[in-house]
């Protein structure tokens, strides 16, 4: 069993039975942000609290990335093995719209307003064998 590590600390709960994205919510104005910030972009307040964001939402907009980005892109792919990937903003009720990669890259299967869930899956494997975990948005069947 390989070791699984999150792509960044503090982005989501990991390891966890039910992992969730971590946002911050301003206690002065109620605005949420992702990733969690130390101050509020809406009111400049610094009284913020970390909270788990909802795991389901609706797709606000999307695109498909058809060419392999330059560095700092680091997926373990080569130009030969690169697969186009979907990117979109998921509107999380009561929270924020979060940008993330989609598990689906077929434009015919993507539409604005569709329901999606946040999933946590291996993104790349490090030289030492560690699996790097990131978050993705997946269509709800």
């Amino acid at each position, binding site marked *: 069993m390989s070791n699984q590590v999150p792509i960044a600390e503090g982005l989501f709960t990991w390891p966890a039975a039910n992992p969730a994205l971590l946002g911050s919510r301003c206690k002065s104005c109620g605005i949420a942000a*992702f*990733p969690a910030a130390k101050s509020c972009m809406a009111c400049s307040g610094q009284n913020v609290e970390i909270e788990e964001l909802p795991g389901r939402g609706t797709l606000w907009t999307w*695109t498909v990335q*058809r060419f392999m980005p330059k*560095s*700092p892109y680091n*997926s373990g792919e080569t130009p030969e093995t690169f697969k186009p990937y979907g990117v979109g903003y998921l509107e999380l009720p009561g929270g924020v719209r979060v940008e993330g990669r989609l598990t689906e890259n077929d434009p015919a299967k993507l539409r*604005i307003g569709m329901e999606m869930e946040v999933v946590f899956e291996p993104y790349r494997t490090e030289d030492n064998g560690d699996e790097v975990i990131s978050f993705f948005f997946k269509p709800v069947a």
Partner: protein
Amino acid sequence: MDVAIVGIGIHPFGRTPSRSGLEQGAYAAREALKDAGAAWRDMQFAFGGSASAGSADALVNELGLTGIPFINVANGCATGGSSLISAYNAIKSGEYDIGLVAGFDKHERGAFNADPKSLGIGMWYGETGMMMTTQFFAMKIQKYMHDHGISADTLAKVAEKSFINGSKNPNAWRREPIAVEEIANSMMVNDPLTKFMFCSPSEGGVALILCRADMASKYTATPVYLKAATLKSRRYGSFEVFAPSQALQQVDGPTVDAARAAFEMAGVGPRDIDVMQLQDTEVGAEIMHMAENGFCEHGEQEQLIQSGATHIGGSMPVNTDGGCIANGEPIGASGLRQVYENVLQLRGQAGEHQVPNDPRLAYTHVYGAPGISAVTILQK
């Protein structure tokens, strides 16, 4: 004190392997000085910017060491606009009589690669492939098409016009018209945008000579007055490039804010404008910026573009020199290219790409990461 533009110079955009970015900037500066009939030693100050071709103030090595204050400006895609505003304020304040604004650049081929850390974003954002301006524009127009009924054919028609206008502009990079079908069927880059719908990083240089309006006649018979120059950054709730998250409640973006401020400053409205240069990083940007700058209602672009209104002979000519799509985007020079084009238009010197009916008011708009817009309004 009103401010006039009395000299303009440009180094052709595109690829010039024989000249460095700095040399292209110096070329443009000499052209602008010649146009104003002024000497470099007459310049009391300079503002300039370049994103990847070295320090703009190194221009003094080319132009001569005269001891003037030369301030480097770095503000992403709004670098040119920011230099211009700085020069405008320097003269308006009464501190200086005359000065130079310059912008030049020389970029590597291929899409810009941005560094998340420089914008205060975690490395994970770039590692997972989301630090891409092209994705932002694609997602913004995708949503806009859904909400306001813009068709894919209209996207292609915008690029078709850009290449037609570029073919009429001797300083443009792309000088061949491309058929609308070829644009629509070229390689998909970021759905719904194809290869020919995007601008590419390129090279070029532009320089302008600004002076007190009451001194303009000393340098030119055709002064063009800078009636407004504004710059705004994003407010909380606007949808911007490089945003790992955005607010549920949307507010107007920096373009809307900068446009409003500029119209107020100039004391004119969108209907008074005769020719406009709007940021067209890709075709969707041009479409959305038409409405965000106040020139039409959201959704009205479908009919306006399909009917040819944005062509050189139309009722609201947009990007008459081919815009970023036909000129490419040398970051430091791009915003100043728009002003150069508008001065040509107002002087009636734009040749094949001249708009008819003696234009009096002209408008420029740039937009760039991480959510800034700059607008100018010129009047003859």
